[in-house]
């Protein structure tokens, strides 16, 4: 396989200056071209310079105090949910009353939505109660 200068340049842009990291099929042809073509060598040198410059980029410096600011904002966000609820609750006199009525409303809703009791089972329960009564289980001991 032979590479033209244009193909070499395209592969250089795609894979960088480390020829060992190129696809195996193009690696040897690239090395041959670099040995024989001065323009290919110049392109490879420029690519190596670029990779060296990218590798030498200084570590990014985070703005001092940003960690504290983000933590404070998060905590303020948590507090504000509770604060806004309390503010809503206490800003009008009817709101605590409404909150107090909530269990009643919930109970009524649950009672309405719960299916009616099975009537057959209800009669069985009544019969059992009558039987127990006949046998004196529920008699008042204080009479004896």
């Amino acid at each position, binding site marked *: 396989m032979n590479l033209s200068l244009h193909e070499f*340049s*395209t592969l*250089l*842009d*795609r894979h*960088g200056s480390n020829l060992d990291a190129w696809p195996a099929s193009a690696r040897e042809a690239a090395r041959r071209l670099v040995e024989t073509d001065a323009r290919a060598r*110049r*392109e490879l040198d*420029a*690519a190596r*310079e*670029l990779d*060296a*410059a*990218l590798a*030498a*980029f*200084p*570590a*990014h*410096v*985070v*703005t001092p105090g*940003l*960690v504290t*600011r*983000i*933590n404070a*904002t*998060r*905590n303020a*966000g948590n507090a504000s949910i509770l604060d806004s609820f309390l503010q809503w609750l206490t800003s009008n006199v009817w709101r605590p009353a409404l909150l107090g009525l909530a269990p009643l409303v919930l109970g009524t809703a649950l009672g309405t939505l719960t299916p009616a009791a099975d009537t057959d089972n209800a009669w069985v329960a009544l019969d059992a109660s009558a039987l127990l009564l006949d046998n004196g289980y529920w008699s008042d001991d204080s009479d004896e």
Partner: protein
Amino acid sequence: MDALPDDVLMARVQTGDGTAFEHLLERHLPAIHAYAYRLTRSHTDADDLAQETFLRLWQKASSYRPGTVRLTTWLHRVAHNTFVDTWRKREDTLPLDDEGDMPATPAESRDDARMQAVQRGLMQLPLNQRTAVSLCLLGRFSAEEAGQIMGMSTDAVESLIARARRTLRTLLADGREHT
């Protein structure tokens, strides 16, 4: 808690553990802030974007699925989407902050001058090329991961990197001819 893996800390954040959040913040803020700076080209906007990213981590922690993607990839995607939603609309109006990562003093050596030229060149690349370079060549993400962050195919990312490399390489070659 410093030694705990990201996924363990995220599981704790999902239960509302603020201390776990603080550890993740310390661990990932430098990378996210660097990425935010290269997107926005402004320190002030980078601060705001990084803050918004971590607040979304806190608020939307339940949407993170361990094992499907690395946390750093997920965070970069959140930063990227936040940037696209909010900042990109005014990208053209943002001033180029030349201070950036660049040293305030003049370059002392040829290597310094070269690096500064590449840094300036990077910040002047079109947004998508700058983003791809930032993720793959500076952030050590694979092209596939960068594609997940940027919402594009692996091939598209590789193509962006190739175009960016060509621009920067030409810039370096031009600089060498002028010295």
